[in-house]
């Protein structure tokens, strides 16, 4: 729709909030009754309810506009000593049978020798305020249009703006089990992102910025658009550097991406499954002295915050790496029991449908006190990596090896020199963490729970053009 035609959007918000509340108590009662009758010793329901709004603007029109209300229920239970899983989004006559039968089949096939748990704790959990103030749909649409205008206004070479998106979402999570646990929390998020495209002669360059906030009013269209546009314009006429070894500073956003890929190594589940090189390294130095890594679900400004985990275990802050020394794996109830330690409250699910696994929450490298510019001054000559691509392919979470298409710029005498593209930066994450020289002060959580400041990582291999 053209902007002027979208004049009745308040109705959408009304429709969203006016949807009949999820009255699931009857369904859960029936489900637990059938589960008990079928022979389940313990049963648990994990419910999620989601609402979202997304709008995309291009060429000063709202080209996509979507909203939704959905709910889903993940069921699990102990049957014959094994955990069975099933899930549904349909709540029709067949739903209870689908869930109970599916979980029974699942438990019957399961041979996992590790003792499974359903949490029987009913203690109170932290009161957290994870919700913020949304805005009327008109305001959000205007925001998307404004971002595009501001990105183009930044520089005439910004010819287009891709993925120019604004979104808001609410999720409610509830866990109910036959141990009388019944806990819930709500979370909301407002966000925006854009990818301006700059052109100059034969050169095309893109920049990407994203921001998450609780309150919609905390988002600033002009600032976000100008930052993204600057990235694109600054990257124009970029070229590869000659292949070789370079001193490298990895900027906060790229470092966040890298930390995210390798965060799995800190999971006790990975270690117990022989999928982590950190197995057997508790108490050892695995990173430079200046590196401290924290997992803190109780930060209200994080976007992986929660008062309790996917098993209902209360959340707590954990220092995973303290001044380079590996202090603890992240655990859920099952992995903790196997290692003879308490759960760290890191049980997680992707939505309602998956089995419970282990993952970090707000997981970040603690900032140091060095400003970014001072890090460049210390480095003198080298490369700043601003963006890494293709992490799902070019980074091996198990071996720690990475070889990633990267963007950035050269630094000479401590100052930014010229933009760089079409190079790969290669190394090993675990080796690199031992070689960190300086941790910057610029910690950011760009779009979720993983966060990092910029790091001076010493020397890495860079492949670019043939050596001159």
């Amino acid at each position, binding site marked *: 729709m053209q902007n002027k035609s979208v004049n009745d959007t308040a109705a959408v918000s009304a429709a969203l909030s006016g949807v009949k509340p999820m009255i699931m108590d009857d369904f859960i009662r029936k489900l637990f009754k059938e589960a008990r009758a079928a022979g389940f010793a313990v049963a648990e329901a994990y419910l999620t309810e989601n609402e979202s709004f997304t709008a995309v603007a291009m060429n000063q029109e709202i080209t996509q506009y979507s909203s939704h209300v959905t709910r889903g229920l993940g069921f699990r239970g102990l049957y014959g000593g094994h955990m069975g899983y099933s899930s549904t989004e349909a709540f029709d006559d067949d739903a209870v049978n689908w869930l109970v039968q599916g979980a029974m089949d699942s438990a019957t096939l399961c041979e996992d020798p590790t003792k499974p748990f359903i949490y029987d704790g009913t203690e109170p959990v932290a009161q957290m305020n994870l919700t913020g103030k949304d805005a009327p749909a008109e305001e959000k649409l205007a925001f998307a249009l404004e971002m595009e205008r501001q990105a183009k206004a930044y520089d005439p070479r910004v010819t287009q703006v891709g993925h120019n998106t604004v979104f808001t979402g609410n999720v409610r999570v509830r866990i109910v089990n036959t141990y009388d646990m019944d806990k819930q929390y709500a979370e909301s998020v407002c966000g925006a992102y854009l990818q301006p495209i700059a052109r100059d002669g034969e050169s095309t360059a893109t920049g990407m910025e994203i921001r998450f906030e609780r309150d919609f009013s905390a988002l600033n269209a002009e600032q976000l658009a100008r930052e993204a546009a600057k990235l694109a314009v600054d990257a124009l006429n970029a070229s590869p550097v000659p292949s070789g070894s370079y001193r490298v500073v990895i900027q906060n956003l790229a470092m966040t991406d890298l930390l995210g890929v390798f965060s799995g190594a800190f999971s006790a589940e990975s270690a117990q499954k022989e999928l982590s090189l950190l197995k057997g390294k508790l108490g050892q130095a695995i990173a430079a002295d200046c590196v401290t890594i924290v997992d803190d679900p109780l930060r209200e400004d994080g976007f992986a915050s929660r008062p309790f985990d996917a098993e209902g275990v209360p959340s707590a802050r954990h220092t995973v790496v303290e001044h380079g020394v590996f202090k603890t794996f992240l655990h859920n109830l099952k992995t903790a029991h196997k290692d003879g330690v308490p759960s760290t409250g890191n049980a997680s699910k992707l939505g309602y449908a998956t089995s419970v696994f282990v993952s970090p929450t707000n997981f970040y490298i603690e900032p140091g006190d060095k400003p970014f510019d001072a890090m460049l001054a210390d480095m003198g000559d080298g490369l700043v990596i601003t963006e890494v691509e293709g992490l799902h392919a070019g980074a091996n979470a198990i071996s720690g090896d990475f070889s990633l298409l990267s963007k950035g710029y050269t630094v000479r005498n401590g100052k930014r020199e010229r933009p760089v593209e079409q190079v790969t930066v*290669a190394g090993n994450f675990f080796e690199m963490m031992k070689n960190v020289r300086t941790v910057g002060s610029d910690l950011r959580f760009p779009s979720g729970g993983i966060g990092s400041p910029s790091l001076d990582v010493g020397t890495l291999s860079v492949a670019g053009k043939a050596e001159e």
Partner: protein
Amino acid sequence: MKDSLRGVLDAALSTGGDFAEIFLEDNRTHAIQLLGGHVETVNSNRAHGAGIRVFHGLNAVYAYTNDTDPQGLLRCARQAASAVADGGSVQTAPPLVSPQLPAPFVCLQHPSDVAGKRKVEYLRQADAAARAVSAEIEQVSCSLSDSEQEVTIVNSEGLYVEDTRIRLRMACVAIASDGKEKQQGHEAPGALMGYELFADRVDPTQVGRDAAQTAVTMLHAPECPAGVMPVVIDNGFGGVIFHEACGHSLEATSVAFGMSVFCDKLGQKIAADCVTAIDDGTLSNEWGSLRVDDEGMPTNRLVLIENGILNNYMIDKLNAKRMKMPPTGSGRRQSYALAPTSRMRNTYIAAGNDDEAAMIATMGDGLYAKKLGGGSVDPATGIFNFAVSEGYLVKDGKIVSPVRGASLIGKGADILLQIDRVGRDMKMAQGMCGSISGSIPVNVGQPMIRVKQMTVGGRV
């Protein structure tokens, strides 16, 4: 059913929209994971919902819900309609009619007719074969997942289409370790069919063996040297190079908005003469095949590039209006929760005339990429990257050593022109492709090809 859906379409059009569509989905999936030789998890999931889309000129509104009762659909339709406030004339949907469709793909052994124990047996075969390769295989993870997706697609042009898609895929990840380092190998074949997959196309033993062999080979491989060099890419999953370097940039998703390097290039030479590339949704029971796309249109065989000349883009219904070109049966989405857009199906470089052995023998010094991992591309710049999961260093036309940690980068437009050999033995492999309408099954494929010069990322 048809009458009530027609009423929902009318509600969606009630504020002046010029096209409305309902996509109803019920998707039952069953997944088993075998880890370390025992069944680790078994999961049965049922996704269920409807997405309603309204066009207004070149723009689209999308709303979706799990509540597929007539009242729930009406509520969802009104929600979508509320974002369109035209004030002009209001259209209504004609009676819904089921068109003549291509014959459905055959499924001989329906997933629900196969006992869980038998499914586990296939996984055990792969697991045992992987472990038998070497004592250095430390861990093996195998999974099997089947899905039955039932869709009903109706629109205000009077279309009523029902379709069922049954898919099955096995995956095996083997990890080799020497106590200090770990390397992995990965295989994941699948098809749009039931459990006849294991009689017709996939030998679980071979899957396990291949994954383990890669892991062990890479464990003993030195780091790949970085640099610019000729690269030979083997058939099968090697086709991901075309998928990333070119395929995404030929989707209307980028072309319609002038955001692709291949805009306005129809009829022009964009690749070397030896390159013909095809996107085909009709191939018999292939992983990326579809009887109808997610907009209810029968799929087709689309020649994207013929002897180097760009012939076609992949176009969905909405972008077809924007581009003033017909849609190509390429509208796809992960689920009812996402609006469809133009996506690839089974995309491959067609077989050529070059001898595979001679290709390596005459390449001089370079890299032979036997297996590729995944990759990604920025369609605006065409800059792509992908990982080499099993590579070999070639010196003077002879394979001298396996190498690990290599990646390949470049610009799609350049690389297509740099291909100088295309082999005879085309093979496809299965992948999941992620883009704005979610993660969808696709085939990639090619015969062995040679690229004159590519940037190889690795250690200096």
